[in-house]
């Protein structure tokens, strides 16, 4: 993957005495201290991140966390105080007025929270706006705009006015306006936040569908973690103008960087994002080709468990043996485990979402075995671990 957008040490300070505020910031003073000392507000403090080509990068945080400021610095609707923003290696902060216009016209398009459609223009004229100001002739731009509208699923509304459309449809127009420009980068500022939950979900699906074909580089601002987890390839969490954590949705959920992120992810519906691999624990195993009943017994005693998983030399999963059967074998002086292995153990793949196996897990007493395509035993899922993961606690192997 190639880097498309690179942001380095980006800082924005609002208000007066910016120079002084910058110095204080460099000394490591906090946002509140700087506000008290010089009356300047730190919007974004030293943010660095890269967005890869074709990636949906979600910047997430509560209001006042600086996420909207960051996205506006990317197209310089807000001028950065310091730092560097580059697209394909070209530094945006060095551009003069004309070059900046060109970048805005060709390289990125923005979608707004409250749609920001021009009420005096029809839907198709709104969609064609970006092309119109580039001086594209009327027939071409209307055709392109029409195609973009079809792409987002708006048929037959070309000559209506924005106020005649519902919120969801208006935002489709907003999206179409951005797509009509054919720029590689989409900046989406809380694009779906103003929509009702059902519409929001539809639009998220729509965006993911579009993305499969278009492979845009998308910077998406959101305050909704569920949304971020749903659409983001990677997520950046911000607090008080600072970057707290950058990672894939799974990393955010499984390895929260600090207490703040932990609190954030507390009320996420984890079952939707957690997979079998996230909640499985290492099983105790015996090798059927090598180990006999005595080894199996020993392993169970060592770990204070009543059954043990059985694999072969290639670590392929065979089944499970329990203590009482093994005891019988020892009494009968049999040296092989084969005769007592139970093979009807439920199995699942590592990437299966927890939701789909949840019910079965609660029904069966034997833990699920997680096996990959080569039948290798990767881990087991015990009920306690599932509940623990869903409630957000550490997965405890002893559970």
């Amino acid at each position: 993957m190639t880097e498309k957008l690179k942001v380095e040490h980006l800082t924005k300070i609002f208000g007066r005495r910016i120079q002084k505020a910058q110095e204080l910031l460099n000394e490591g003073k906090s946002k509140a201290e700087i506000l008290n000392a010089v009356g300047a507000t730190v919007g974004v403090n030293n943010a660095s991140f890269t967005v890869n080509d074709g990636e949906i990068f979600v910047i997430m945080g509560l209001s006042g966390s600086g996420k909207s400021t960051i996205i506006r610095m990317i197209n310089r609707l807000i001028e950065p105080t310091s730092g560097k923003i580059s697209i394909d290696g070209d530094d945006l902060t060095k551009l003069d007025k004309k070059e900046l216009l060109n970048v805005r016209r060709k390289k990125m398009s923005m979608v707004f929270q409250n749609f920001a459609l021009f009420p005096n223009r029809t839907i198709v004229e709104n969609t064609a706006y970006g092309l119109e100001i580039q001086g594209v002739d009327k027939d071409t731009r209307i055709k392109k705009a029409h195609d973009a509208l079809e792409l987002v699923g708006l048929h037959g509304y070309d000559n209506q006015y924005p106020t005649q459309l519902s919120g969801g449809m208006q935002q489709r127009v907003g999206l179409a306006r951005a797509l009509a420009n054919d720029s590689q980068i989409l900046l989406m500022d809380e694009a779906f936040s103003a929509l009702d939950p059902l519409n929001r979900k539809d639009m998220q699906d729509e965006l993911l569908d579009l993305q499969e074909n278009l492979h845009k580089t998308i910077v998406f601002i959101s305050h909704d973690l569920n949304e971020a987890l749903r659409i983001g390839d990677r997520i950046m969490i911000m607090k008080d103008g600072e970057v707290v954590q950058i990672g894939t949705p799974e990393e955010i959920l499984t390895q929260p960087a600090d207490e703040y992120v932990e609190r954030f992810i507390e009320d996420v519906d984890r079952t939707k994002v957690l997979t079998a691999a996230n909640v499985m624990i290492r099983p105790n195993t015996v090798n059927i080709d090598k180990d006999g009943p005595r080894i199996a017994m020993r392993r169970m005693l060592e770990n204070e468990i009543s059954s043990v998983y059985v694999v072969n030399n290639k670590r392929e999963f065979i089944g499970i043996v329990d203590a009482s059967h093994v005891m019988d074998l020892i009494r009968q002086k049999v040296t092989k485990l084969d005769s007592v292995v139970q093979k009807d153990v439920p199995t699942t793949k590592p990437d299966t979402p927890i939701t789909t196996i949840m019910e079965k897990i609660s029904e069966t007493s034997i833990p699920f075995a997680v096996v990959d395509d080569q039948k290798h035993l990767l881990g087991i899922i015990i009920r306690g671990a599932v509940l623990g993961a869903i409630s957000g606690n550490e997965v405890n192997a002893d559970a």
Partner: protein
Amino acid sequence: MPNIPQIPVADWVNHFVNWLEGFTGFFNAITNFIGGIINGFQWIFDLIPIWLFIVLVIGGTYWLNRKTKHWTLIGFELIGLLYVWNQGYWRDMTQTLTLVLTSSLIALVIGVPLGIWMAKSKTVEVIVKPILDFMQTMPAFVYLIPAVAFFGIGMVPGVIASVIFAMPPTIRMTNLGIRQVPADLIEAADSYGSTSWQKLIKVQLPLAKSTLMAGVNQSMMLSLSMVVIASMIGAMGLGNKVYFAVGRNDAGSGFAAGLAIVILAIILDRITQAINRSKTPKA
């Protein structure tokens, strides 16, 4: 206050006016230019037969309000204009109309760009706002004196005084209208790479238009209120008739001419409002 010397404001202004009188060529040029506009309007109005004029006004009103069918307004216009004709004030009415249209036109041409400039620059706004307050609150009679000094007597100084008095609403409302364009629309225009000019023409002015037109409407009404005052320095028209009636203590003809002004005012007001409505996209 016997001990404190009086500040010679009057002297200063007189000196300034005297100094300005040195620029005769400049003022003559303005006089000729405005005189040209006035003569143009007057020529057109004199050319159109009265019955055709009435038909045009009523037809225009019908067309502008074609969706709502304002029959009461059309009836009022018909009766009102016939009244003016009947009273023998037709030519006076067209002269007043010329004065109003000319000063509104000038107010529009100067006021709109100034309003835009104010909206774009905080500094300009800070400077222009008190000047507008001054222009609107200074008694209109005061403008008559230098207007006569620079432009002689007749229609032109009347127009100039009307413009000074009537222009502020156009400037203010243009400024207001542009500043009221929602911030996210400005952001949208900027984010797609609009130049300032494109942003102004394609987004700000169209969205400011109904506010701007309300300002133009106000300017027109204010300049109409200046017609009687302007008649004191020789501007012709209905105001002149009222002014004469005052001089002769003739309440009857004063009222008759005053009523004609009211009729003209209402017609102008409704028509400009209808123009504003018909061009604004409906939700």
